[in-house]
């Protein structure tokens, strides 16, 4: 069991490989289109890879700098959505922030464990990052999860219960939201089980401000916490992997495509 538990971080890397492969597949799907590609072009348009290289060299009509600025302000910060609905903007920002935050925390842990520590680099940073009970790790982890849940709850309620006059909810929408919700929700009991399995003292565990109260509720059950933690971790990873595999074939691909499209469109509009 210890060996299995020790395999947690390699699982992360396998998951990252899946994400990378899926993303490559998505890009390949887009790039394959360049062999043809009429689009908005006229009879003088040059198709194919040569056309793509020429287009990249020429850059966007409004220039790279302006386009990149709009990728940030309109593709990621969604100014138009902000103007139309503060509530939806907040919900989206919470989901995006929470999701990116959790991804960064996981990536940071993997970096510390597999690169910095073996190379003996930044031992102080490694010590903090690999200590899940350190306030700098525990507080952001709990908060990012909470943000993701809050944003997801709003999106789910809007889609399922207040769909407005005509907003259709279909299986792909529900599946994406359900997976996100499951990943975010399962993170808290997972943290509680870890605190119980590692018998983390209250003084250190309190920074997990949701996981620790939950752990105290569970403690009287007296289960084999290490095993429970291991299996819940597997389920958690399975859900995350499913989401990442599903990503390039679902509307989740908007995470990559939307900032580019929004940046280009807003830059051209001078928004």
């Amino acid at each position, binding site marked *: 069991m210890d060996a299995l538990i020790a395999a947690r971080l390699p699982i992360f890397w396998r998951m990252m490989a899946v994400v990378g492969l899926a993303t490559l597949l998505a890009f390949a799907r887009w790039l394959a*289109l360049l062999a043809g590609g009429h689009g908005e072009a006229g009879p003088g348009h040059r198709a194919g890879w040569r056309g793509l290289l020429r287009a990249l060299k020429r850059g966007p009509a409004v220039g790279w700098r302006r386009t990149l600025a709009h990728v940030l302000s309109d593709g990621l910060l969604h100014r138009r959505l902000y103007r139309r609905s503060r509530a939806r903007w907040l919900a989206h920002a919470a989901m995006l922030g929470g999701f990116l935050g959790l991804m960064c925390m996981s990536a940071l842990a993997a970096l510390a464990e597999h690169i910095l520590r073996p190379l003996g680099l930044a031992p102080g940073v490694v010590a903090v990052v690999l200590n899940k009970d350190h306030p700098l790790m525990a507080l952001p982890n709990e908060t990012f999860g909470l943000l993701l849940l809050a944003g997801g709850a709003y999106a789910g309620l809007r889609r399922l219960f207040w769909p407005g006059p005509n907003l259709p909810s*279909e299986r792909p929408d529900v599946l994406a939201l359900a997976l996100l919700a499951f990943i975010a929700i399962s993170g808290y009991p997972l943290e509680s089980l870890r605190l119980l399995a590692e018998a983390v003292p209250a003084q250190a565990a309190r920074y997990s401000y949701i996981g620790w109260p939950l752990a105290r509720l569970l403690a009287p059950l007296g289960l084999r916490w290490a095993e429970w933690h291991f299996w819940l971790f597997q389920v958690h990873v399975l859900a995350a992997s499913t989401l990442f595999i599903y990503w390039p074939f679902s509307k989740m691909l908007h995470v990559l495509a939307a900032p580019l*499209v929004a940046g280009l469109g807003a830059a051209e509009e001078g928004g």
Partner: protein
Amino acid sequence: MAHRNAAIIRLDRSQLSLRQMLSLDACTRCGECLPACPVLATTGSGESTALSKIDLWRRALRRGTDRTPAPSPPPQLPGRAPRQPSGVGGMATTRPGLGLLRPVPSGRLLSAAYDCTLCGRCEAVCPVYIRTHDLWVAQRRQLAVAGLAPDAVLQMAERVRQSGNIAGSAAEERLAWLANAGEGAAPAPASAHPDVVLFVGCLSSLYPQAFALPQALLGLLRLLGVNVAILGESEVCCGFPLYASGLEQEAFALARRNVELLKGSGARKVITSCPSCYHTLNVLYRRWLGAEMDLPVLHSTQYLDGLAGELAPRLRPLAEPLAGPITYHDPCDLGRLSGIYEPPRRLLRLIPGLELVEMAEHHEQALCCGGGGDVEMVNAGLSGAIAGRRLAQGQATGARALATACPQCKRALTSAARSARIRLRTYDVAELLLLSAEGK
């Protein structure tokens, strides 16, 4: 099984640009576009909404299409269809099981693509700035390349091929509108080096409901001492109806011919009162022909706005029944597509005593008149019903008349007002200016 596969028609992906393919993936189905869609608001059918079209196309690109009609008939106009469990009337839904592998019926793609006025309201509200207007045209191009374009569209293309105009009229009929345009209206010879050349367009030349537009514009230009030329019988369709219906390739020859004629006129500027012609000449011709199209193009309201200083002293208050508030309808191709909102309004405000009142939806949010996107050609009932909604918004302002700056908007709104017996007359901005200048 082989037989079944043979019936599947693959949409030509190369008709979409990389950006358009990215746009299909950028849509999050957030639904912001739904309240903006005039077709959904008018019929209750969500098939033509941006959300639905993007979803349908994602699947059609993967699975192909076939020559089968839409599975259920679209809801009847003008009533709204009852809400369906998974979305709205006919809106794209993902079917479970083997349905996931089934090609998308071409009937659904056709009604989604062609029951759309290309008004661009979805583009104006999309949080990720998807260029829907260009995307919808590209989708129509895919259908046309696959041999699925509606008969009405193919007939229109044939008329243009045969006669050089959408009406299928003889070339000499292009001058019919000049009959009542007053003296000195004959086209200036090329050697006269006119200040501007007026590209009249098929609608204003060949459809009597729109004759008043070029007549009024010519009257105003004469009043202002502008030396104007027209292409007369030689003018051919700008190509916009072909472009908008997915037959862009057929428009290139028309573009070349018009550019040759415009340059041959000796004028330094081109003006047109039709927003679709304006977009075609100003944007599409440059895209299609590159440096070959080097003449500046202005919409008539832009040109007159530039002459406001000379125009204003000649204007007098409008007489009854036009004395009172007037509302302005933003044509989609002039407003959202070309970004021209203020010149027509500034011109109207030049008229002494005219009170310009805005409708509930205006500028970027303006409702479509129903006449765009070749919808009138393939679904006249839908076009009229949308126009009726716009007229209702106009009536709600208490305006005496509705002003616009587009011959197709004028036609669509006038026809709808007649058939629905709505007492709100539509004028072009140039008509009101001329009436004011003439003290009528």
